[in-house]
């Protein structure tokens, strides 16, 4: 069992890190201050990244993507975590793998344009009354003629202002509960689709989070993604790799970057005549962060390797989601503490990382929801969940 990176993995990681440090990091403060990424800058980043094959690396080559394995994609996503959400979206693309459910004419209409970066997609599942309890959505689609009519409301839809189409969850069979929910591909220019206000957030500046309103939106039959009634299942399975990457791997990358800064500060900052890194209370914070980041990354790689091997990784993904996001939260908090007053000050980016880190414990399923899921799985399957000898 060798956990060292291969030469090509190393090169990919080095190139992405260089791209992020040279092209993206210098833009972060401007985006933070202005609350937006100028469209011409976004366009330029996209074109540079696209030319290098760094856009939509998670999508198979047959659809125009980079065709990375899950493990390789996690290495890339970890690097993405070193910059901000909006810069990742525009440079590398958040092309959701749920779009791989596209078949027939859907491939040319939605999947390929999204992979090429011509059309941007957001996932619209959350509603004001349905967050963690995704089965309690009220948005509904009813059969009408050869298509569907969509009615309802979504909120907190990340990147909604920029997106060209949405993957929307809607009830199609009210009598079937969680098994009566389907996913739809909804173009933003459809009659009856209204983009609401951009909901201001604690962090992730530059990425919009909008309300969406659907007022008798007529959808043709092609707009149904996958099979009816399977929407929640897709959200759990297909979005699993997204959760692993966009939350798990990015949290590990962000924590790593923050720890780099904290270690630097502990080495450089002198008080009472010595570097503060010589004080054991500071050392404790650093050592805990090192251990937790290493553990989080190994759990991440384990889950990624399970996906590549075709095993059911749902419980592992949940563990990564909880562990990586909570690790990021602790590492960011310790970094503020190690930097002291400067950590709280807006003159350094530490406070921004701290604010940006907070949502990792919330989005894509809260720590509590995933924790409960892990406990249920353990009570059902026992050792299979925590003992490799028992695992299938």
């Amino acid at each position, binding site marked *: 069992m060798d956990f060292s990176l291969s*030469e*090509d993995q*190393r*090169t*990919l990681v*080095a*190139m992405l890190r*260089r*791209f992020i440090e040279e092209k993206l990091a210098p833009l972060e403060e401007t985006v933070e201050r202005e609350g937006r990424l100028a469209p011409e800058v976004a366009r330029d980043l996209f074109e540079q990244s696209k*030319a*290098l*094959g*760094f856009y939509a*690396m998670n999508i198979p080559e047959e659809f125009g993507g*980079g065709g*990375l394995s899950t493990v390789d994609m996690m290495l890339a996503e970890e690097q993405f975590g070193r910059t901000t959400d909006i810069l990742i979206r525009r440079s590398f693309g958040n092309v959701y793998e749920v779009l791989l459910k596209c078949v027939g004419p859907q491939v040319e209409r939605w999947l390929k344009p999204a992979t090429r970066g011509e059309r941007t997609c957001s996932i619209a599942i959350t509603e004001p009354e349905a967050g963690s309890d995704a089965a309690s959505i009220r948005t509904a689609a009813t059969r009408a003629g050869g298509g569907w009519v969509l009615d309802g409301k979504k909120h907190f839809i990340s990147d909604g202002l920029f997106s060209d189409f949405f993957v929307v969850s809607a009830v199609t069979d009210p009598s079937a509960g969680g098994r009566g929910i389907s996913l739809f591909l909804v173009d933003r220019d459809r009659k009856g689709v209204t983009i609401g206000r951009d909901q201001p957030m604690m962090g992730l500046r530059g990425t919009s989070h909008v309300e969406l309103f659907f007022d008798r939106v007529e959808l043709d039959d092609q707009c149904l993604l996958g099979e009816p009634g399977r929407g929640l299942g897709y959200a759990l399975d297909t979005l699993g790799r997204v959760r692993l990457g966009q939350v798990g791997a990015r949290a590990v990358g962000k924590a790593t970057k923050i720890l780099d800064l904290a270690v630097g500060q502990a080495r450089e900052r002198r008080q009472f005549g010595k570097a503060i890194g010589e004080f054991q209370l500071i050392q404790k914070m650093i050592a805990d962060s090192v251990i937790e980041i290493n553990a989080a990354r190994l759990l991440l790689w384990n889950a990624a390797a399970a996906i590549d091997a075709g095993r059911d990784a749902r419980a592992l993904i949940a563990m990564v989601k909880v562990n990586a996001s909570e690790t990021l939260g602790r590492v960011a908090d310790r970094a503020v503490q190690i930097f002291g007053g400067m950590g709280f000050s807006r003159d350094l980016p530490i406070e921004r990382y701290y604010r940006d880190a907070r949502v990792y414990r919330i989005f894509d399923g809260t720590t509590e929801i995933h924790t409960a899921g892990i406990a249920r799985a353990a009570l059902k399957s026992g050792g299979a969940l925590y003992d490799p000898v028992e695992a299938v």
Partner: protein
Amino acid sequence: MKIVVPVKRVVDFNVKVRVKPDGSGIDLQNVKMAMNPFDEIAVEEALRQKEAGKASEVVLVSVGPAQAAETIRTGLAMGADRGILVKVDGPVEPLGVAKVLKAIVAAEQPGLVILGKQAIDDDSNQTGQMLAALLGWPQGTFASKVVIDGASAAVTREVDGGHETIALKLPAIVTADLRLNEPRYASLPNIMKAKKKPIEEKTPADLGVDVAPRLKVIKTGEPPARRAGAKVASVAELVGKLKEAGVI
């Protein structure tokens, strides 16, 4: 025409190196290594010449430990065609490297060898010049521009006080300065292709070269700590101090 580009595995330029406590050298334990930045510029230049139709193949050579294959692979991912690793554990001095390269040149018959002007670890700035002397080839060092035209190359050199352009008859040696170009990013498709590109392994003995060090390092030490400067309150005071110091 073939272009040979030697690449060296060195401490990453971001790393703050530390001297070993016994003064015997630099501590390389757990230190990130990378391709010498000037060599990256040399690889980029060779690739641009190839893309401009001036060269048909770019061959990378590294003299170093097994891990130097990684450095070659980085250049292959940028777009070079193949690599040669001359395996040596332990330090190799510029003259040793130049002798190895001479043997490689004899086998490969390139029209041009582009090297970094120096490696950022020992800053010797000797290998290119020594190779030119061993081969009896013309050399254009500290190049900031290279224009190949048939059997000759115009090399613009960064010299004290400005630029100098010289004409070299090929085959020739060029060493790359910082402003020659900006090295590209390796693209994802090229990174994947690099895996399949061949790296041939050789030893100095295969080439009939003795690379045993001729120099002895007596001591490695930290640079002296800088002392704090004096603060001045006004321009007049500054001018007064400078006069006092006899510098103006």
